[in-house]
């Protein structure tokens, strides 16, 4: 098994941290994993992304042209990455900021109002963890508990007071994805209807 995931969003939305969290969890689960950020002369408010590759074998290329999964936290990210998700791959979109329908029918899509859910837990900055929860529920990447543990172990010290809220947000994201979880129509039909 080797899966590639791109996390993308506005700078400050926590796309890079969501990717790191998955990377820590993969490490704790004994997987091979790489995390590589977009780096460059980035602009405040510009889009930042990272690529995570998780596998059972040592990772060759840490970058991919067509990722298996994309977590798009804002509209520019959805516009940029929807076209390149691998066929039958998965697109998780922040429905709070992406108001357009999903165009592709050959991929699964979860449209999750991540900002709104995060807001319910008192902090819009939890949106990244909400979306990670949704991603994990919809795939067999890693068990939710491993990521929960990674949160406990690797949430920066200054954010430790937010741990309960982070965990709750992770579960809420997962729960939302499960309510969309497929019957034989899969997520695809869901995306089509939206």
């Amino acid at each position: 098994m080797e899966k590639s995931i791109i996390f993308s969003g506005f700078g400050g939305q926590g796309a890079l941290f969501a990717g790191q969290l998955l990377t820590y969890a993969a490490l704790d689960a004994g997987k091979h994993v790489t995390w590589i950020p977009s780096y460059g002369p980035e602009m405040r408010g510009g889009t930042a992304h990272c690529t995570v590759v998780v596998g059972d074998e040592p990772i060759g290329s840490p970058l991919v042209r067509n990722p298996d999964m994309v977590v798009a936290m804002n509209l520019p990210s959805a516009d940029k990455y929807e076209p390149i998700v691998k066929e039958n791959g998965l697109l998780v979109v922040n429905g709070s900021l992406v108001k357009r329908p999903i165009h592709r029918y050959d991929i699964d899509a979860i449209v999750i109002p991540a900002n709104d859910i995060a807001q319910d837990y008192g902090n819009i900055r939890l949106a990244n963890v909400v979306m990670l929860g949704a991603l994990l529920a919809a795939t067999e990447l890693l068990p939710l508990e491993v990521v929960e543990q990674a949160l406990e172990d690797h949430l920066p010290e200054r954010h430790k007071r937010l741990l309960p809220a982070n965990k709750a947000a992770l579960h809420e994201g997962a729960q939302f994805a499960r309510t969309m979880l497929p019957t034989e129509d899969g997520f695809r039909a869901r995306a089509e209807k939206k």
Partner: protein
Amino acid sequence: MAKELWKGNEALAEAALRAGAEAYFGYPITPQTELLEHMSRRMPKLGLTFLQAESELASINMVYGAATVGARAMTSSSSPGISLMQEGLSYIAASEVPAVVVDIMRGGPGLGNIQPSQGDYFQMVKTAGHGDYHAIVLAPSTIQEAIDLIYDSFELAFKYRTIVTILADGSLGQMMEPVEMPEFKEWPEERPGWALTGAKGREPHTISSLYLGAENLEKLNLRLQKKLAEIKANEVRYETLMTDDAEFLIVAFGTVGRIAQSAVRQARENGVKVGLFRPITLWPFAEEELMAMTRRVRGVLVAEMNAGQMFEDVKAIAQGRIPVQFTGRMGGTIPLPDDILPALDTLIDSVRSRNGNKPEPTRAREVSA
């Protein structure tokens, strides 16, 4: 020891400390600045010397100065900064003092950009400064390998009184991977016999790169060449993947070396018998080992993040016996398996059409040759 997640630049810095680095002199430049930052956080606490110099010229000459007293000194930079260090590197080489230099390459020429590149191959592998010498050039393809190589670097530098370069690119500097960090190395208190340690009670040592008079300078050059031959005989490192039954060979180093692993696996799934040859020491280059392999395969593809710099070395080694082709990306673009695989197909096609109606000419001819 449990695996930890480290960023490439910081891992290189920490591993250098554990390898015994005592003095670091540097100047910030993306995409290697985290290396300098890690040193600035760690070295004062460890009672070691960290100094942010006013320029790359200053940093390399500070390394030179520290090295003359037998200190384990190092610097790090990225391509344009390394260009500025060329004079100092040449002085260090001529003075035969040990030094470790990390080059986290970025897109060029010129100021270029801060994206990853392998455009410093010529600059670092061919000499790193004017004159007849080579640094030992180590090219890691994973963060663990970067740690392992820099962990050996001071020993190599002191053993041969030479410059050891870690040649990596921005993506390796910026990415994170699970790694195991080694323990701190023990070094003897005593400085090497050649070091400038104060001449009380003995004849003074002289360390200089100025040799007036042709005879003297030729003597130095002959000594350097002898040393290079010794390094060549002892220090070649490389890795191969699926080469046993390979009909085709990809040659790639560093980040492209690991990306090519993915390409090889994908091509194998499609039934193409291809293997990977990944030089780890770019100087000394695994010439004999690669030459032996080029006698067994039908074509070679060189993949790099530049316009084809190592390509020239591979062509020289293959000596025109088989087709050697190149694929690469420049300007900070990383070649992916999707770039390498079509180039491999082109190679296979050209080998087949070259062999035309002859049933199995390439192998037969080479075996009898």
